[in-house]
């Protein structure tokens, strides 16, 4: 079990967003979390990458190690958990290359960094063409590629993806998922959050469904695709 | 905790009218018994001026006496009268609810003014502090229009205030006073107090016009850059006045007539609160908020953003100018140095301490900082450690200020608490 989450509670001020979530992800798997707006999907990812604090009693373990004792930057630097946040959050005032350099801030393995960089540019040739451009001037799809590539560079034992398809043209969406498959094939576990449930379930091996901060369903992706409740609520009958 | 809850329960049914009655009782007690009996018995040299804080800090031995004084003169009368008369005052409040709200507001205000008048009448220092505090209230509300409601970081307020102060001073000196600077008065001095409101308005109007220097660049630039423009404006005004020798230059102007009496200032404060309240609660005024939160969206929602910005600056500057005019006639001396960075820091402290986007917040901010500044006088230097520390804590725990995004609701305020 690579990632194990037990009894995860999170609140924003007085608003309780997660009420005790339990799930786990095996190494090399692609797992998706689906749910309506505001269900708590992004919150789950943020809790894992320590962008927000979890409440007392929550357990998040990575390869048996307690994540909660690390701060957000250590989670990336020490454990190799990378997070593609909602809304991309690329650094618009830095060039594409600088975004990549920054992602490797805590890494010491110079050679591997070079290899990773080359691999990312091979995966997204568009980025290599624009490597000296300010990231803020990239188109939406390019920014999304940068966000994924950058996350990959910061460490890639497991990648947390928050709605990578948001606002992408259909054709780009396909490219993006191809790329993610490739990343997974090379050994990165993927935990994917998506609004586009059909796409996500087609892509993933297993899936979880969150409603109002609670886990309500889990199972093989294909079985969820056939589940009548899921169909009705998330796939559009 | 338990006590606090009990206390709250006991007094939750006292209406505003009841509290005012209590305060009136307290002030009457002080007026008639304060000097000759209570303070004498307690061994105080005089009636303590700001609830005794000054005496306490200067001579700590007096602390028990002062506390006893406050208890006997203020706390006990206010609480007992408020509590005892609650049934009666609730009835009154109930019947006041039936008359038009403006009438009931006026009744409350008259009562409130009466109390203040008595309280301030006991000692001229109190009176002066009260006057300057009210000017601070006007000033803080007016800067809140720009920095809070409209969301700019404007540093030009001392400049607006200076313009208002100088224009009003020049007018009163030219029109009503025989002085060295402008010679014979043009009008009989008896007219002065009657025309004083127009003079203040003129000061405000010129300040409002001068604010265009900041408002017009604000079409193209916002935030930090505008902060610099407004700061430059402040320096420009100061330097311009220093160069105008016919109005005294750096030396300043003095001998303004004594027109800024307590009732005059009180009326202006209430007028400011009333007009600014009306404005910021109307759609026209809420456009300020819209422009602050998202200018582009406002444009697309038909809001005239340029006009709105100009209004915000001119409106804020107008009241700052009025406050400046009042200030000049309280102090009866102004010089450019009065309107400098130090004043800016003070105004900013008041508005951000009190709370953005809220008139009550501004009142609270102005009153607390003004009174704190006076009350901590005996600490001399340490005052300037304590006040900043308080401000830092407020900013950390309430980043928008003590009371922010909250408007006055007169109806609720004066409501009868009979359940």
């Amino acid at each position, binding site marked *: 079990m690579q990632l194990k989450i037990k009894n995860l509670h999170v609140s924003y001020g007085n608003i309780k967003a997660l009420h005790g979530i339990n799930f786990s992800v095996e190494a090399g798997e692609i797992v998706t979390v689906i749910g309506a707006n505001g269900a708590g999907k992004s919150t789950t990812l943020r809790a894992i990458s320590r962008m927000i604090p979890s409440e007392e009693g929550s357990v998040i373990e990575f390869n048996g190690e307690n994540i909660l004792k690390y701060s957000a930057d250590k989670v990336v630097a020490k454990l190799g958990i990378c997070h593609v946040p909602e809304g991309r959050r690329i650094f618009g005032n830095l060039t594409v290359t600088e975004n990549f350099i920054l992602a490797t801030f805590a890494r010491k393995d110079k050679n591997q960094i070079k290899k990773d960089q080359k691999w990312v540019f091979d995966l997204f040739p568009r980025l290599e063409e624009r490597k000296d451009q300010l990231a803020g001037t990239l188109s939406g799809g390019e920014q999304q590629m940068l966000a994924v590539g950058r996350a990959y560079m910061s460490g890639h034992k497991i990648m947390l993806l928050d709605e990578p398809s948001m606002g992408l043209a259909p054709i780009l969406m396909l490219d993006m998922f191809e790329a993610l498959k490739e990343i997974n094939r090379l050994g990165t576990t993927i935990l994917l959050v998506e609004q586009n449930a059909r796409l996500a379930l087609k892509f993933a091996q297993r899936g979880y469904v969150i409603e109002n901060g609670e886990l309500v369903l889990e199972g093989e992706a294909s079985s969820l695709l056939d589940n009548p409740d899921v169909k009705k609520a998330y796939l559009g009958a | 905790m338990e006590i606090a809850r009990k206390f709250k329960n006991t007094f939750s049914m006292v209406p505003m009218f009841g509290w005012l009655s209590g305060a009136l009782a307290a002030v009457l007690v002080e007026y008639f018994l304060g*000097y*000759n009996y209570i303070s*004498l018995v307690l061994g105080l*040299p*005089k009636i303590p*001026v700001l609830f005794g804080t*000054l005496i306490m800090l200067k001579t700590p031995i007096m602390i028990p006496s002062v506390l006893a004084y406050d208890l006997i003169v203020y706390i006990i009368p206010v609480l007992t009268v408020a509590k005892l008369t609650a049934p009666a005052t609730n009835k009154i409040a109930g019947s006041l609810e039936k008359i038009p709200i403006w009438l009931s507001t006026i009744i409350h205000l008259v009562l409130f003014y009466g109390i203040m008048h008595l309280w301030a009448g006991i*000692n*001229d*220092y109190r009176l*002066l*502090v009260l006057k*300057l505090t009210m000017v601070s209230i006007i000033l803080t509300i007016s800067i809140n229009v720009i920095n809070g409601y409209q969301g700019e970081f404007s540093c030009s307020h001392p400049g607006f205030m200076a313009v208002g102060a100088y224009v009003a001073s020049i007018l009163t000196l030219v029109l009503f006073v025989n002085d060295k600077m402008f010679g014979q008065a043009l009008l009989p001095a008896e007219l002065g107090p009657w025309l004083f409101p127009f003079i203040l308005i003129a000061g405000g109007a010129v300040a409002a016009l001068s604010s265009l220097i900041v408002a017009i660049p604000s079409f193209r630039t916002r935030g930090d850059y505008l902060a610099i423009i407004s700061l430059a404006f402040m320096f420009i005004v*100061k*330097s311009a006045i*220093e*160069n105008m020798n016919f109005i005294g*230059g*750096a*030396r*300043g102007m*003095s*001998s303004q007539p004594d027109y800024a009496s307590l009732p005059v200032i009180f009326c202006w404060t209430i007028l400011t609160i009333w007009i600014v309240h009306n404005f910021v609660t109307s759609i026209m005024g809420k456009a300020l908020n819209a422009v602050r939160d998202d200018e582009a969206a406002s444009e697309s929602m038909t809001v005239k953003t340029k006009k709105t910005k100009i209004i915000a600056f001119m409106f804020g500057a107008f009241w700052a100018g009025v406050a400046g005019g009042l*200030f000049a006639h309280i*102090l*009866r*001396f*102004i*010089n*450019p*140095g*009065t309107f400098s960075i*130090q004043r800016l820091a003070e105004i900013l402290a008041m508005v951000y301490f009190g709370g953005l986007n809220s008139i009550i917040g501004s009142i609270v901010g102005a009153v607390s900082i003004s009174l704190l500044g*006076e009350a901590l*006088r005996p600490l*001399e*230097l340490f005052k*300037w450690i304590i006040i900043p520390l308080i401000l830092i804590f407020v900013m950390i725990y309430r980043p928008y200020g003590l009371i922010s995004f909250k408007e006055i609701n007169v109806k609720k305020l004066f409501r009868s608490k009979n359940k």
Partner: protein
Amino acid sequence: GDRETVIKVGINAPLTGDIPKVGEGTKYAAQMWLEDIEKAGGLEVGGKKYKVELVIEDNESKSDSAVKANTKMITQDDVLVIVGPQSSAQAVPAGEVANNYKTTMISPWSTNPATTLDRPYVFRGCFLDPFQGPVVANFIIEEFGFTKAAVLYDVASDYPKGLAEVFKAAWEKKNGAGSIVAYESFTTKDTDFSSQLTKIKRSGAQVLFTPQYYNEVPLIVKQAKDLGWTGPIVGSDSWGSAETVELCGEPCYGQFFSSHYAAAGAKGATKEFIDRYNKAHGYIPDDVAALTWDALRLAQQAIENAGELTGKIETDRTAVRDALAKVKDFAGITGNMTFTEEGDPIKCAVIVKINDKGEYEFYKSVCP
């Protein structure tokens, strides 16, 4: 009432703000005075000894604060007399308050005529700008025989600006219009005067007059030297602080300024005061301290001369004022004083030379 009558003396001083050193000198001088009174068991008025209290208020170097401080001391603390504020910017508005409440106020250091003008209750302890300006101008003309002078002053500050104007008028009266070849200014808290000094140097001026405070003088003198200025630099009473030369060092040696008193080589009561102050606080008192001391002694004499204290503060205050106005030939440590109608003392100015040891040496005395 049954309250004990205590004589309260208010001190309105800039303890914080721009010129805290002035506030400090004021406070120390006042405390020394109080010590003396206490040693004597109080102040004797009309055969009765009264306890004396000091009420020291900070005016933060701000005019509104000075007004508040005066109002507080008068209406709340019931002070009998007020000493201060020091700078004209605060003394002018604060004097208005004192006069309105018919309370005697003595500003030790304010040289602006407006402070006492038409205010029967306001006095001062020093000479005025219109007197000092010509004194300096005449001194330079007599001493050096120069005909072209430059002035450098702070336009935003009341005192330097006023004095610069008076000096200019006096100089041009003697040497003709245009004999002030450079009349340059800066703003409070500026520290770089290179542009103005470059201009002054180019103007061909033979002497530079700069009526600035002790924090600017060292900078002006040093920068002038750095820019190749070799002529004398002359100042006014605001140079009088011991810090001027301490901060300035050698470049200031040999310069002249007009003042109320000269510390080096002082004799008698003046020396006594200087030594006592120096012992208590570790430095030579500046003119502010000396003038404050004199102002307090003046107040003391007026109170003693008032006849008797009725305990009714309004009456007593007026009695003190009348007594003060009558004071003749008061022997202060900064010179002998007699008040004019306006409440300004007629007293001599001293030209001080900063000698090679950096001491303030008496050079000559100019009397009106």
